[in-house]
């Protein structure tokens, strides 16, 4: 079965499903019983939901900026490593080989992986996101191989 066929079958599962029995009497009973205490929790949860929303928005913004500020080509001759793309925004001990030339690519790949994982949480059935994540991981491994030749 190909990825697309798996994807198509998973998509078919999203459709409405008719319950095998009438569920409304049970729901109505529980709604009536829980009517009084049910009023308060939404108000208490509102600040938490807002805080979570703001945090998620800020995180998405930071990641988006990190991806947009992708490294640009620069000649390396006589270059001060401090001005290479990504240097200062990612700890050098997290860069393959500690090589400042790979800091920009490390930042781009790590940000991409974080975004893909966040997307997968929202759309866990997306097989193609797993494929992109795997291929991005392979790019990270390739960077590690290049970094192993540094020093």
């Amino acid at each position: 079965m190909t990825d697309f066929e798996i994807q198509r079958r998973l998509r078919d599962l999203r459709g409405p499903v008719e319950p095998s029995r009438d569920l409304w009497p049970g729901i109505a009973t529980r709604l009536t019983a829980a009517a009084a205490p049910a009023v308060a929790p939404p108000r208490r949860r509102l600040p938490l939901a807002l805080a979570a929303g703001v945090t998620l928005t800020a995180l998405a913004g930071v990641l988006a900026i990190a991806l947009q500020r992708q490294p640009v080509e620069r000649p390396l001759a006589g270059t001060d490593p401090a001005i290479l793309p990504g240097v200062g925004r990612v700890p050098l001990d997290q860069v393959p080989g500690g090589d400042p030339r790979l800091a920009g690519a490390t930042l781009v790949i790590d940000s991409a992986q974080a975004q893909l994982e966040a997307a997968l949480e929202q759309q866990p059935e997306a097989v193609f996101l797993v494929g992109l994540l795997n291929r991005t991981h392979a790019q990270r491994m390739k960077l590690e191989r290049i970094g192993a030749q540094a020093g």
Partner: protein
Amino acid sequence: MRTAALALSLTGAALLTVPAAPALAAARPIDQTVAVDADARIDVSNIKGSVSVVVWDRDEVAISGTLGDGSKGLTVEGGGSHLTVRVEPPEKSGWFSWGADSRMGETTLRLSVPRRAELEIEVVSASVDVDGSAGRRLSVESVSGALRLAGQPGECDLSSVSGRIEVGGCRERLDVESVSGNVRVRDAGGALEFETVSGDIDVETTRYRTLSAGTVSGTIAIRGELDPDGRVEIESMSGDVALQIGADASVDLHAETFSGRIRSDFGTVRSEDHGPGRSLDTKIGSGAARVRIETFSGGIAITRR
């Protein structure tokens, strides 16, 4: 010069090394010629500076340019069916050594090679320019140098971390991989494969058989005629995708996005009744070719050519 080259080929494997010069000396000129087969494999490596390759109708390789300060030398090995041209890093330094890179001057390598020679080029920050190659295979691997290919090699494997990649011709198979470098392709056919993390992919060609493109946040734009039984698979997380389909094409088309938008000149876009998501399933003509596009938040635009 030609006599010397023939002598080298007759004596079998040859090894020539431009000796090391004192650090900070002036760039040393390079001028060598080696006889090779018409379809020889030629390996070239440089660290920084440039590699320029042009073709000619002679069974020999001419190497010219200047060797950058600090390099241990230029090694030229072999001849006949396999030639290696390698810029050596400074003493006691690895090929990708940051210390070596910062202590070296730029080396300019200019090569004239047989038209049908197979090329394998490896650089760190050096730019690579290949013009006119029609060999069986061309492979270029770079860290930050820009790559430009103009010619008609049979198979092309191009890879860069952050350098941009420009391709103007590849006959049968093209495989391009990049982290953040942008990819621009004009006139490539056969099987096309592209993969970037944040780099954009821009392809315009006359006809292709299969295409596979994936990116996390780069944009993807594809223009060209798909073979009647061709296959296209495009995947993107947040990058936008634009695909042109010929008006007389015969395509089974599926496009799907979780939170992006779909705009299409073919079929009707459907929104999910329950939860997010938009999709498009339609057949153009008999639908012999297959096109599949999936994004998470990137927009999808499918237009008629």
